[in-house]
């Protein structure tokens, strides 16, 4: 079953055609990677899916809900979460608060005026957030300010925040960008582990090591057009991909 179906999406910035009639679909429960050279339109494509950009034409369907024209927080509320290239977390707050906020958003919706309850007395939210932190191995740092974490830990925290909302679809924008090899491997392990929960994932990635160790299916984007799609092994050998993506070099 298709969980995400993008059809005929076009997006131009001035004279630049960033996305050219893109059709794309993701099967439920799979890990789908989008790769492509710099400037291929990967981030634009992701932004069109998540509501940060509105496509000029075309539709984005999530199950039977049309995401086109919805606001980012509405898109999140129907079950789509996003991990950013640079971890976006609440740097002034503690790790525990960082995870409690999305947990509350999941439970209470986009706005709730609980001005007279104590947050630290809300056992349900607290336990769920703690459990989530344990899952990503950050439980012992729960009272630290998240701004002082290492980049790898920030990424883990951001993942915990997204996962605490039990999304149906998780979009990851270069989840290992700028990480050391060890941190990258940790992130891959973590992503593999959460793959067991049946969360569908779309990953934009530069690092081929990450793509080939995670993805079930790979889509190659170049100059705003999809030039190839298939299993990682097939993509590896596809001459068009090597031409566009690797400038003809062998993988």
């Amino acid at each position, binding site marked *: 079953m298709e969980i995400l179906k993008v059809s005929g999406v076009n997006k131009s910035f001035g004279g630049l055609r960033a996305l050219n009639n893109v059709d794309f679909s993701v099967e439920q429960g799979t890990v789908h990677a989008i790769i492509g050279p710099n400037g291929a339109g990967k981030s634009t494509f992701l932004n069109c899916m998540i509501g940060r950009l509105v496509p000029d034409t075309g539709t984005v369907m999530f199950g039977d809900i049309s995401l086109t024209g919805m*606001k980012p927080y509405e898109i999140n509320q129907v079950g789509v979460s996003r991990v*950013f290239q640079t971890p976006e977390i609440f740097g002034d707050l503690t790790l525990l608060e960082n995870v409690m*906020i999305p947990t509350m958003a999941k439970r209470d919706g986009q706005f709730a005026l609980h001005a007279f309850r104590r947050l630290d007395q809300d056992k349900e939210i607290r336990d769920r957030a703690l459990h989530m932190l344990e899952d990503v191995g950050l439980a012992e740092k729960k009272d630290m300010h998240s701004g002082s974490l290492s980049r790898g830990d920030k990424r883990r925290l951001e993942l915990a925040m997204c996962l605490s909302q039990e999304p149906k679809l998780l979009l990851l924008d270069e989840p290992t960008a700028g990480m050391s090899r060890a941190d990258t491997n940790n992130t891959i392990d973590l992503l593999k582990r959460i793959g067991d929960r049946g969360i569908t994932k779309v990953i934009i990635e530069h690092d081929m090591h990450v793509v080939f160790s995670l993805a079930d299916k790979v889509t190659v984007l170049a100059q705003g057009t999809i030039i190839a799609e298939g299993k990682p092994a097939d993509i590896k050998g596809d001459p068009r991909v090597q031409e566009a993506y690797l400038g003809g070099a062998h993988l």
Partner: protein
Amino acid sequence: MKTRLSPVGDMVLFAAFTGAVLTMPIWLAPVGAGYPDLLQKFAIYGLFATGFNILFGLTGYLSFGHAAFLGVGSYTAVWSFKLLGMNPIPAVLLAIVVSGIFALLIGYVSLRRSGIYFSILTLAFAQMCYNLAYSVLTPITNGETGLRVLETDPRIFDSTTRAEGPLISKLFGFDMTGYPGFYFCAVLLIIGFFVAQRIARSPFGTMLKAVKSNQNRMTYTGLNPRPYTLAAFVISGMYAGLAGALLCITDPLAGAERMQWTASGEVVLMTILGGAGTLLGPILGAGLIKYFENIFSAFNEHTLSSIFSFLPDFLKELAVAISSLFVGEGWQLTLGVLFMLIVIFLPGGIMEGLARIGKLFRRIGRGSDKSHATAPAE
């Protein structure tokens, strides 16, 4: 790293705060601030700054137009005196409601932008209110003269009482001047502090901190920041309206100058001076500024020369000549210097200073413990 207080810790803080506020006439007497007029100002501006801090301290939205709500609160209170009688309770409640409605309208428009644009929008709105109160709205505000309560006003609930001299607001037979006036404001300050404390510890307060920290993540977490910022704006506007009403309790007169931008700037100074985002900071900042305004401005050359009388004559004259620049009319110069020093060296305001002193003492304490512990081993 900030320490988050437990429920018990919060109760202790609240109890200590209540005790400190109620005993202010005693412990502020030695520094010359133990008289009800000034104490009442501490309480009123403490409320104003506490409310302002809910917006600025928690969400980071810097409003430069909060004086508008102060003015609206004052006008509403005087109208309540004129129409309903001199009881302060309906005046206070009406002021909170009306300034809340005002804040809803202004906030709805201004919060479409953030950062400097938000500040400018609020400033523009406040200046508009000020100018309207001065000119077009004269039938409501009585323009330049200011709005006051007259003997001929309907005052439905106490029109029969005829006072000797000026009309003063009354509660349970107490005139709202002197200490009864102060204690009325002090009780409201304590309630206001309690509400602010609850908000800061609540899920709602945490969301406000999230707005300040990262709005982008907030939207991608399924939260709409706008209703949160608007709610914070309205709540802080209500606090300002309440403060404005209290300003009219002892002196039932409302003038347009209360809405001027200098008054909006003052509450920003108070909050930053005390420590934005902390519970006690804004109240301390408000107290400090009002103290300077009343005490330092009252100094003159005579008081200065008696302070420096221990110096030889020529040195005394020099000291008086220099220091007289900073007192009397020049008290704002002292305030300016103090403000600059605090912003440069203690960006977290007085509260950060106190926290550093506390840490220093703890380190000294721990240091001596350690030396005791290691002593036997030697």
